[in-house]
């Protein structure tokens, strides 16, 4: 399994580099804001949260779509399945790699947020609960975007694999804006992720290679 994951990481190097650049740029942005204008809830409300979120969704859905689309065009599974590997293992390794990208991108950002919020916000449980809900929503949104990328990446043609995942992922953002980051949103995102993953796996395993 490790070899398959390593192979997936190798093939998606560009996404990991972009993810790292994204993380670094956010952290640099936050630090520079802290040093230039000080830190307060008021100044933070002006931060470009939405573009940050959109970039992350595009990155994660793009990763999923790219993994499946490249597999199809380069016939990667067709070759790998002739070795001591099952298609199920290929898919699992792929998803683990995707989750790894999400964690590696979001974890430093989340850590940075935690530090900043500890400095800025008073230790009121309500704020902490809001922060946890926010992180949970971003994480689930990322997983949903990635899963939608996987789902559309295996579709025939070129337009749907390239643009489908990102479009669907971006549709999820208004949902989060409208419904907030409560449990309802979490349930919807979990369902979207689960359904996309199950369908992608079933499609990937049953399609002739």
């Amino acid at each position, binding site marked *: 399994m490790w*070899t*398959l994951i390593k*192979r997936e990481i190798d093939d998606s190097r560009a996404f990991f580099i972009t993810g790292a650049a994204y993380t670094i740029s956010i952290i640099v942005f936050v630090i520079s804001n802290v040093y230039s204008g000080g830190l307060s809830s008021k100044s933070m409300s002006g931060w470009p949260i939405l573009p940050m979120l959109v970039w992350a969704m595009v990155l994660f859905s793009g990763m999923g779509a790219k993994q499946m689309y490249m597999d199809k065009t*380069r*016939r*990667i599974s*067709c*070759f*790998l*399945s*002739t*070795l*001591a*590997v*099952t298609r199920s*293992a290929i898919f699992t390794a792929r998803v683990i790699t995707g989750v790894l990208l999400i964690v590696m991108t979001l974890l430093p950002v989340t850590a940075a947020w935690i530090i900043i919020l500890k400095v800025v916000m008073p230790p009121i449980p309500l704020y902490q609960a809001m922060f946890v809900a926010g992180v949970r929503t971003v994480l689930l949104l990322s997983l949903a975007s990635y899963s939608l990328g996987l789902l559309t990446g295996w579709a025939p043609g070129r337009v749907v694999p390239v643009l489908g995942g990102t479009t669907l992922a971006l549709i999820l953002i208004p949902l989060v804006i409208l419904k907030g980051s409560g449990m309802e949103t979490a349930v919807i995102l979990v369902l979207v992720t689960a359904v996309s993953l199950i369908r992608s796996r079933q499609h990937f395993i*049953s399609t*002739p*290679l």
Partner: protein
Amino acid sequence: MSDIAIEVRDLVKYYGGRCVLDGVSLQVRRGCIYGLLGRNGIGKTTLIRILLGQEPASRGRTFVLGTESMQLDARTRGRIGYVAEGHHLLQHYRVGHLVRLCRRLSCQWNQPFFDKLNETFRLPMERRVRELSTGMRAQLNLALAMAIDPEVLILDDPTLGLDTVARWQFLALAIDVIQRDGRTILFSSHILSDVERIADRIGILAGGKLVVDCSLEELKRRICKVQIIFAESPPDDLPLTGIIRQQRSGTEVIITVANWDAAKRAVVEAFRPQHVAEIPMTLEDLFIECTNPVRMPTAV
């Protein structure tokens, strides 16, 4: 452990409403080199892909090493070597990288054997796979398939794109592999002389059916081309069963007939021909006779 390495049971495959394989059944015993022949687009690659679980069957079942194709687990897959038609390797990988990947993903990797193959083929480890010629890709694919010490080696037109020397090297290697105890090879090829050289059993696909499934010697014994010359015009119809093909030219009739024996010869002799002679047939002749679309349907 079963004596059967590959089994196909009443396999049917439809492609867009067209029946490509129509009730094909065959068994390949362990240690056998099975040559699968057939014209282009007749379903050889489809049959192989179904065997490997890359394609579902419309009906029927296929087994490799006792496991149903669609349920092949990683361990069983690791005992099967496969060279695909067109050599679908990871084109964007460097050769060395691909070799390392295959080594890590194999259940057993015979490094000395791979080194020996590499010495023969002189694979450029630093070049990308897509930069290799077709012949080199074929050699790389063969080397990767053979280095895992497969119990079953499935080769789909493996010598396609190889020059004569490389083809002969490949055939020598195939014989080397088969000489290891219990190794089985199923291979399809258009180069009949290759098949004739190494296969000990032949299957010929025609019209979606396996019209021939026997040893080469048996095939040569069973199908016979007979030249019959009559003094006057030949009879309109020779009352023989198993006529695959019949050509007439003046007083001469040439028939290709299945299961030619003394009884059939006696039937021909009853028409008092001037001359009856059996014409020796090569595998190529036999293949043409068996796959000719105008032939009369006769299972051999």
